[in-house]
Structures are given as structure tokens and as C-alpha cells.
């Protein structure tokens, strides 16, 4: 049964962005045995429904949030559609006031949407009762910029707090707390009070506390923004290891592109309440479309800066040929440069380089000056092309 034929009856598909729809389709083809399409007349609806439950942890459909203030109505989130897959690390980036904080608070009900639907793990949370919602919340936990620990409780007691709320018996609580303290690397600190800990350690307590009830989603509200760069890295590493170990879906909001670059699989860029751009991190890095995205990307790659100085480079290196190599993903691991030098009779000079590591591989540019016989240069460029590295000749000498 072709996909197009059942699309009209599967309204859920229409909302899925193109790119993820394609990916989802592939997934679906892979498990064809899931439903026998030819026999079951209800398959189109059922399959769409189950497929959506299977793939997506969180779906937002035209979600809006308006605040009424004395100054008038403020639209913090405006018709946002998002689909966050199970097990991925999804980043939402934006400047302050873009609506990202409100968006993440909508996901665990700290704010109620004024329009649209939010579906978490197959359950629509916008219309369920308060009591039911409290149960959902235990599966969607959150860490905060300022940690929000109870200062009157020790580390162990802080971690036990959500377990108390969930009604876990005392002896089981102690075991779980011990496990969690080990998981976040705070052995021996169980009896410390938060005031005796550093920022990074406090965030570790926050993470342990958030994981206590074995949630399926972890929301990170600017979780590293109050930390220094080194501590930020260690917390991000912890998040990645948790994501891998526990298969947890992580949604994080930040204004730092470094955070997105380091750990996210996909990213959504928010501006004035809208998601203006969305996609795989690597793709967005490679080809940012919106001006705001370009600004965020340039935070990390300084690509904009590089373009400005390109002209200057041409003037500085007038001999030979200047070529720009763009690395995306795995190829960066290959020793292209040494092969180039060994195989061709050329002088190779590294003029400028910038390689950043994202979660799905390296991304960056390298500008080389090649000097030598012009046919050798042509061959060399051809060779680099064969390595599937994007090549761009900057100057023709």
C-alpha cells in the first residue's frame, strides 16, 4: 500500500516535517510486518497512530501560549509544531525572550498552552486531569539553570525527594539513591548539604534527582548556563552518557551553540515565539538558512568571519592555488593531508583551519595553499573530490 494513498486518512502524518517524514517512512518500511496493510481496512489510521507512538516521544501541534499582562497580550509561543523522537537529544536554541523557556515549561505542564496540542509518549497532556497529569510528570523530569535544590536537605535527601513524592517505600528509596549518586559521580557526597557543593556538583544532584523516578524524558532548562566552560563540558558528557545508557530522550534549551554542537542530534531555532529552522545539527551547521541561525552557527565556527578574511587570504598568498576543504562528518578522521603530500609533488601549506566536533562527527573547514605544477594541482583537487570532501577553489592563479 503506497504511502500517498493512506495519507489523507492519517492526519498525523501531515504535521510531520518533510525531513523526519522521510526518515520515518524508511523506518516504517523496515518493519513492514508491524501491520498487514492489505488485509486490515483500519490499518491506515491504526498504523499512523501506533507509528507515531513508536517514533515520537513528544509532539507539539500548533502550540501557542499567550500571556495577559498589564502592558497587553504577549505571545510567547506562536503556533509551534515539533516532533521529538524517542531517545534523541533535541536542542532548542534562541536568544532570551524567544519563547524557548515557555516552550520547555509547556512540556511538563508548568505552563498550560492557550492553543494546540501536546502529546507526550502517546498521551495528550493538554486535556487530562490534574491527578493523571502528576503521574505523567514523573516520567518527564526537569533540571534547571539554578539547580533548584532544597537547601534544607542533604544530597541524598534531595535525590530521595521525587521518590517520596512517588510513594516509594523507604528501604527502596535508599537503594535507588545510592545507585543514582554513583551514576552521577557523587560518591561520598551523600551527606553534604547543597551549600557545601560547587555549581557542577549541584547540577549533578539535580540530574540524579531528575532521574530518580526513571523518567522517559529529561528537560534541561539552560542547565549549563550558570556553569563555567569546563564544568559545562563535564555536565554535557554526563547527559550524553545518560542518554546512551538509559535511552532517555533529552530536550534542552540553551542560548549557547556550543552546547547544541556538542551533544544534540537535532536542533530547532526559535525566534519571537516561532521555530524558524529545524533539522539535524550537522545539516544546520553546514547550511544555516535563517539569519539568526547563521548568527548562532558563527558563534562556533566563525564562518562569517572566515568569509570576510577570505579576500585577505588571497592577497596574502598570491602564489599557487588556495582551496577550501569542507569536512562534514566522518571524513575528517581520514589522513587526507598526508596522502595528498605523499601522492602529489606539491607544496602544501595550511593557511587556515577550523574543525569542531559535533555529536555526529566533525565539522569544519581547512584552507590550503597548493603550489606546484598546474596539472599536479588539478590531479590533487580531483583526488580530494574522490575523498568526498567538499572542495572549493578560492583563487585561480
Amino acid at each position: 500500500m503506497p504511502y500517498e494513498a493512506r495519507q489523507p486518512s492519517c492526519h498525523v502524518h501531515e504535521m510531520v516535517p518533510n525531513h523526519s517524514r522521510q526518515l520515518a517512512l524508511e523506518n516504517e518500511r523496515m518493519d513492514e510486518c508491524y501491520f498487514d496493510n492489505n488485509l486490515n481496512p483500519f490499518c491506515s489510521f491504526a498504523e499512523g497512530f501506533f507509528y507515531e507512538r513508536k517514533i515520537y516521544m513528544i509532539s507539539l501541534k500548533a502550540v501557542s501560549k499567550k500571556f495577559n499582562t498589564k502592558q497587553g497580550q504577549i505571545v510567547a509561543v506562536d503556533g509551534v509544531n515539533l516532533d521529538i523522537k524517542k531517545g534523541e537529544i533535541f536542542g532548542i536554541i534562541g536568544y532570551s525572550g524567544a519563547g524557548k523557556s515557555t516552550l520547555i515549561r509547556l512540556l511538563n505542564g508548568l505552563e498550560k498552552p492557550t492553543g494546540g496540542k501536546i502529546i507526550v509518549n502517546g498521551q495528550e497532556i493538554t486535556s487530562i486531569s490534574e491527578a493523571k497529569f502528576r503521574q505523567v510528570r514523573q516520567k518527564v523530569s526537569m533540571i534547571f539553570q539554578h539547580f533548584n535544590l532544597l537547601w534544607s536537605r542533604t544530597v541524598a535527601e534531595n535525590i530521595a525527594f521525587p521518590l517520596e513524592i512517588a510513594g516509594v517505600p523507604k528501604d527502596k528509596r535508599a537503594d535507588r539513591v545510592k545507585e543514582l549518586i554513583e551514576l552521577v559521580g557523587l560518591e561520598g557526597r551523600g551527606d553534604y548539604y547543597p551549600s557545601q557543593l560547587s555549581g557542577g556538583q549541584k547540577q549533578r544532584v539535580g540530574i540524579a534527582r531528575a532521574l530518580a523516578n526513571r523518567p522517559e524524558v529529561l528537560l534541561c532548562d539552560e542547565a549549563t548556563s550558570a556553569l563555567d566552560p569546563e564544568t559545562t563540558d563535564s555536565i554535557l558528557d554526563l547527559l550524553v552518557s545518560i542518554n546512551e545508557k538509559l535511552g532517555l530522550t533529552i530536550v534542552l534549551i540553551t542560548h549557547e551553540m556550543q552546547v547544541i554542537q556538542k551533544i544534540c542530534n537535532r536542533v530547532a531555532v526559535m525566534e519571537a515565539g516561532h521555530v524558524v529552522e529545524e533539522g539535524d545539527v550537522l545539516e544546520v551547521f553546514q547550511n544555516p538558512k535563517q539569519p539568526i541561525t547563521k548568527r548562532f552557527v558563527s558563534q562556533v565556527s566563525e564562518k562569517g568571519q572566515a568569509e570576510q578574511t577570505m579576500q585577505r587570504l588571497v592577497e596574502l598568498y598570491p602564489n599557487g592555488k588556495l582551496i577550501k576543504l569542507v569536512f562534514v562528518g566522518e571524513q575528517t578522521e581520514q589522513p587526507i593531508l598526508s596522502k595528498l603530500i605523499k601522492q602529489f609533488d606539491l607544496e602544501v601549506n595550511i593557511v587556515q583551519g577550523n574543525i569542531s566536533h559535533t555529536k555526529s562527527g566533525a565539522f569544519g573547514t581547512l584552507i590550503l595553499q597548493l603550489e606546484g605544477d598546474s596539472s599536479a594541482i588539478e590531479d590533487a583537487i580531483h583526488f580530494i573530490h574522490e575523498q568526498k570532501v567538499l572542495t572549493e577553489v578560492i583563487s585561480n592563479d
Partner: protein
Amino acid sequence: MIDKIFPNVDWPKMWEAALETLYMTAVSTVLTFIIGLALGLLLFLTSPHQAWANKLANWLTGAFVNIFRSIPFIILIILLIPLTKFLVGTMRGPNAAFPALVIGAAPFYARMVLIGLREIDRGVLEAAKSMGAKTRTIIWKVLLPESLPALVSGITVTCISLVGYTAMAGIIGAGGLGTLAFLDGFQRGREDVTLAATILILILVFVVQWIGDIITTRIDKR
């Protein structure tokens, strides 16, 4: 030596009065703590953006607290005579002082409770909410423990005010050091009796402050 400084003091009587003051202070402090805490929590929880946000309830509680906090205690005692007679059955003795003491002090303490609760980081409440905590859990496991140092230092101050109030309640015959100082000391022109009662009251106040400070320091883990 002591008899020379305090020639007119009847020590067993003074001791009995001191115990009466202690009794009135202790019982009224406990009652004030409970009622003031309840009022303070009500003020906090009915304020905007809180769990029981309700303009009318908040306004009514606020009005009650402000009115009884503003009436001078000596006038409050007189105004409350009918209520006291109804509740206690008599206007004489330490028990007759309780309605006025508690109604005078609880609103005062409620304000201090409110200040303590407002000092709790909003983020902490939000975190508890995001974990699915019910309002009851938030009260017992977040609001009260997190504001405990403020609650204790508040009740210390209130307790000291209550020592003063018990002395005033002596005017209407509640007994205790206040009555002794007023009737035996002032009205009979025996300054040494007044002085001895004052010293005992001062000792009581210092001990209360000292205990309050020790507890506050010990529980404050910030």
C-alpha cells in the same frame, strides 16, 4: 544582702508569679505558632500564582491579620473581655489571658511567616511541582522545611513580645510578674518589688532569645 536590696519582696510569691508568666508565655507561644503558621500559609498560598490563588480569601485573611495586628494590645484585651468570658468562663487567672494573647500575637507572627515563605526560591517550588508534588506535599516537604530558620527566629521574636503582653495582661488581673509589679510594686510604692519582677522578666527574655538563636543557627544549612 539580697534582703537589703529587696526588703519588701515576698520570694515564694515572686516565684509563683514567675511560673505563671512562664506558663502564659509558653502556652500562648505554642498556640500563636500554630495559628500564626496557619494564617501565614493561608496568606501565602492564596496570593497570586500560588496553589490556592484566590483574591477574596487573600484579602479577607490579610484584612483580619492587619486589623488585629494594628490594635494596641491593651485595648485588644478590653475589647476581647466578652469573648474571654465566653471561652474561659472567667476574667481572672492566667487562663483568662490566652484569647487576647493569641489573637494579638498570631497575626503578628503570620506576617513573619509570610515573609519567610516569600524568601523561598520560586524555582524550588517549581521543581517540586514539576516532580508531581501535591500541594500538601509542597507545604510539608518544601515550604515548612525551607523556611524553618525564618519560622524559628520569627517565633523567638513573637515569644519575646508575648512576655511583654503577659505583663500587660496583668493589668486586668491575669496574674504573673506583670500583676505583681503593678499591684504589689507600683500601687503600693514598693520599687524593689517592681525591680525584682523586671529582672526576672529580663532573664526570661534573654533565655528565650538565646535558645532561639541556637536553634536557628543549627537548622540553617544555607
